[in-house]
């Protein structure tokens, strides 16, 4: 049901964890629906130096969070902000139709973390 890429990111998720004194934190989803994603950003000179995530959710939720962190690491804030759920799905070689919402959540989590960074840093 899942692509090899999804299974790879699910079994060895990249960038799991938290960042102490993160510059931006975004949390989306809710436990009732069975998905919560939390993304931590470390930003220096407008560049995402480090990113970590924690996710409560299914295989696709973990995989989309993992690949999203990979996709924005080292990018500028502006670039990261352009991340779309479609790009996340493509990077994972597709997702089953009922799991597309997980990719939306990943996009929203990244954006929420950037918003948080901007708010904290008056940008």
């Amino acid at each position, binding site marked *: 049901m899942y692509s090899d890429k999804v299974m790879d990111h699910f079994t060895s998720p990249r960038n799991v964890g938290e960042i102490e004194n993160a510059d931006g934190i975004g949390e989306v989803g809710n436990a009732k629906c069975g998905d919560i994603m*939390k993304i931590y950003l470390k930003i220096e000179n407008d560049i995402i130096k480090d990113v970590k995530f*924690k996710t409560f959710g299914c295989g696709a939720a973990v995989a989309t969070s993992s690949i999203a962190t990979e996709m924005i690491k080292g990018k500028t804030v502006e670039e990261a902000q352009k991340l779309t759920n479609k790009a996340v799905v493509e990077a994972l070689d597709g997702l089953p139709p009922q799991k597309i919402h997980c990719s939306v959540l990943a996009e929203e989590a990244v954006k929420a973390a950037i918003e948080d960074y901007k708010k904290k840093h008056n940008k």
Partner: protein
Amino acid sequence: MNKRIYLDHSATTSTKPEVLEEMIPVFTDYFGNPSSIYSFGREAKKLVDKSRERVAKALGALPEEIFFTAGGSESDNWVLRGVSYANKNRGNHIITTSIEHHAILHTCEQLEKEGFEVTYLPVDSYGMISLEDLKAAITDKTILISIMYANNEIGTIQPIEEIGKIARERNIYFHTDAVQAVGNVKIDVKAQNIDMLSLSAHKFYGPKGVGALYVRKGTKIANLITGGGQERGRRAGTENVPGIVGLGKAIELATENIDKYNEKLLKLRTKLINGVMEKIPYTRLNGHPEKRLPGNANFCFQFIEGESLLLNLDMKGVAASSGSACTSGSLDPSHVLLAIGLPHEIAHGSLRLTLGDENTEEDVDYVLEVLPEIVQRLRNMSPLYEKVKGGK
């Protein structure tokens, strides 16, 4: 990964070699149509009749009260529609429970659209109905009470005999979906006042695609599958003779060995439940502590989600199931877990392990070794767990 442990016997079981052995010549040698009058047909007819006797014996019924179907879902559909349509003149009210299999629930929803009224009895936190609720739900329009014998997810066994008594006293038909119970629980339809009972062969080491419906003599029930005059004019369609033969053998074996089987499963289940509860904090056992199927263990692990758990277990070779939304194919977690009062977020983290014949103590040891690690790994990844840890 070489190790594979099957812990999903409530989903289906393997077909026993002895069962398969009896089925094979039916495909190749005794392939006649039981409706044909020549010897090929008569041979096949005899095999169907023998199976019917075996099923009747296992249930304490008469052979003429057993009808073969394509499985549990057909049997359930037949009862609900057949009894409703045939007894319209007496009333339009059906009583069932909120934790039935979807074969019952979805059919009831259809019947509601057709003008029938359905009461869905609630259950307590163990998944048990209340006999007082049942009595209170009965009206003079009630024509059928359909309550499952044992729940497929949490394994809770209902007070069938008492329900049967209440139904008989009020002169209301009583059906029980015993798909999960047959082979695990001793059944006597006469002593338990059961008017109709659904069963499915592949849940007790028989083949898939075949089941039966017991219908007590004199019950008014309309046909569901119409066509030829098979099954004494009650269920059309050429008989699945190999399947029926397999069902007969499987139910005979299951009833003969029920005490030994129960004892074995109980021992394994006790070890499994105790081990999991001891090794994994923030864990809840779902279902009744005693009145449950001998092979059923159902847990909720807080802060994690069921599908992730199943994928991880699968990678370790363990086959299990969950009531999380992601595994049910909808956005809601299992209706059974919600009915016993679990909040959504807890229900999402459910795991059902159902033991069976081929499982050993080593299998349980293995699960007790890998499961705590997997749960911990997922918790470490979960933002919900973080909050709990932080609060400590």
